[in-house]
């Protein structure tokens, strides 16, 4: 059969959006568009990754991301196993590198990892031969989430360049924010970020427009992306109370109306209703929150497919 024109990813891992060029990001989105159609078939499975073994290694709780990766892997016919930390040797005191090397000894092809330490996936990529995919590392990045967000924006708005995207919420603890700022910036969006001053990471104002006024952030926005208040990561008092947070920073129907009439409302989940977003908005006609979840599978299939290509083991 004839060889098609090829364009691929330069790296063998997906550790961060920072490593991707705009062209590579667009390749992932274009590939995801083709992958999305598979979910509409009577048989939602293609034989592409037959015989490949993928380990999902999750050191933090996750429903959406882990399920999404598992479904993506199965739709590509890979053999997959998911390891939850509670049932692994980690609780017996094994180090991350030892856990990884032991898994490697069983010859998987890819490891999808979520870890509470920023940079954990980079560490793994230096000791492992498998392709490493970052499913969220500490406060650092969550690249596939940003890619599915970009995919959803492009699908709904037809483009990304030139759009005003307002990201509102717990910026400080959010790896979703970090990946999105980098990706949407590469793709030409005008990004605004809004949070109480205690939740704005240092240096963010060098990359995007930072404001403490949700009105200013949301006004005339094409996309409003709400981020979860990550109570489980908060050791300290970042704001007086959840109720006060909602009063000042919550996305209410009135505030949502400041955005453009055709704006879309996004949230990476899990949502805290009545904290960062009002239920009426989350369930309203402009919400694309569940589309994001649907698109996540297609985007992850695209990433798995594109990374499974070139083998560095070639001698």
């Amino acid at each position: 059969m004839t060889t098609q024109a090829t364009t691929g990813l330069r790296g063998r891992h997906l550790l961060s959006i920072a490593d991707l060029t705009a062209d590579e990001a667009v390749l992932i989105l274009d590939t995801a568009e083709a992958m999305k159609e598979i979910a509409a078939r009577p048989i939602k499975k293609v034989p592409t990754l037959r015989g490949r073994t993928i380990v999902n290694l999750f050191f933090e709780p996750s429903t959406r991301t882990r399920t999404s990766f598992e479904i993506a892997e199965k739709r590509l016919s890979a053999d997959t196993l998911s390891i939850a930390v509670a049932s692994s040797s980690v609780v017996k005191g094994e180090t991350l590198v030892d856990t990884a090397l032991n898994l490697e000894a069983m010859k998987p092809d890819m490891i999808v990892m979520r870890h509470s330490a920023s940079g954990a996936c980079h560490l793994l990529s230096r000791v492992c031969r498998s392709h490493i995919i970052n499913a969220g590392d500490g406060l650092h990045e969550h690249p596939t989430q940003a890619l599915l967000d970009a995919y959803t924006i492009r699908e709904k708005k037809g483009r990304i360049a030139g759009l005003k995207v307002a990201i509102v919420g717990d910026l400080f603890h959010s790896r979703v924010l970090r990946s999105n700022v980098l990706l949407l910036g590469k793709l030409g969006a005008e990004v605004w970020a809004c949070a109480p001053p205690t939740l704005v990471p240092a240096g963010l104002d060098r990359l995007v427009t930072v404001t403490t006024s949700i009105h200013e952030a949301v006004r005339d926005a094409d996309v409003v992306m709400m981020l979860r208040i990550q109570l489980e990561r908060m050791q300290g008092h970042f704001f007086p109370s959840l109720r006060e947070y909602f009063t000042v920073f919550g996305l209410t129907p009135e505030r949502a109306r400041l955005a453009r009439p055709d704006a879309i409302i996004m949230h990476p989940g899990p949502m805290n209703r009545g904290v960062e977003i009002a239920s009426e908005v989350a369930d309203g006609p402009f919400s694309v929150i569940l589309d994001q979840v649907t698109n996540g599978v297609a985007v992850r299939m695209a990433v798995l497919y594109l990374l499974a290509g070139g083998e560095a083991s070639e001698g």
Partner: protein
Amino acid sequence: MPVVMDAGRVAKTITRIAHEIVERNRGLEEIALVGIRSRGVPLARRIADAVATISGTTIPVGSLDITLYRDDLMRHAVGPQPVVRKTDIPFSIDDRRILLVDDVLYTGRTVRAALDALIDFGRPQSIQLVVLVDRGHRELPIKADYVGKNLPTAPHESVQVRVAEIDGTDEVVVEGGEA
């Protein structure tokens, strides 16, 4: 680089294939064309247009990308993955007679992949194969039902079908003949 079919010949061949399809298939409404990306798709559309002109029956056309079904996909030691394009079959293939359309029939591996892909969309009543050029050198037991031109070639040669929709011109050329 010898041109073995020019635009006029390609047009006549498509018309002839359309006549053969009309002649051999009673009940044209049960038929659907599925073009294999990339060049099988415009060829399928043109065949559908020609059938409509001859018989007055409009036949639905779908497009199939077989990349994810290729048997050589994971064999490449290095290099990026082939680009995956969209498959779009906007009708049920169940109990239909499917005419699979491709530009060149060579090893048969593309057709094998396309058959696997099609079966994932349902259970057609039958699948027939239409190709503009059959250049020989089959590696699988696959045979075309409608052939535009039989073109004996050497394995080191390459047969390029160009179509106006993609390449700006209609022609078939053989490259790499006398090295």
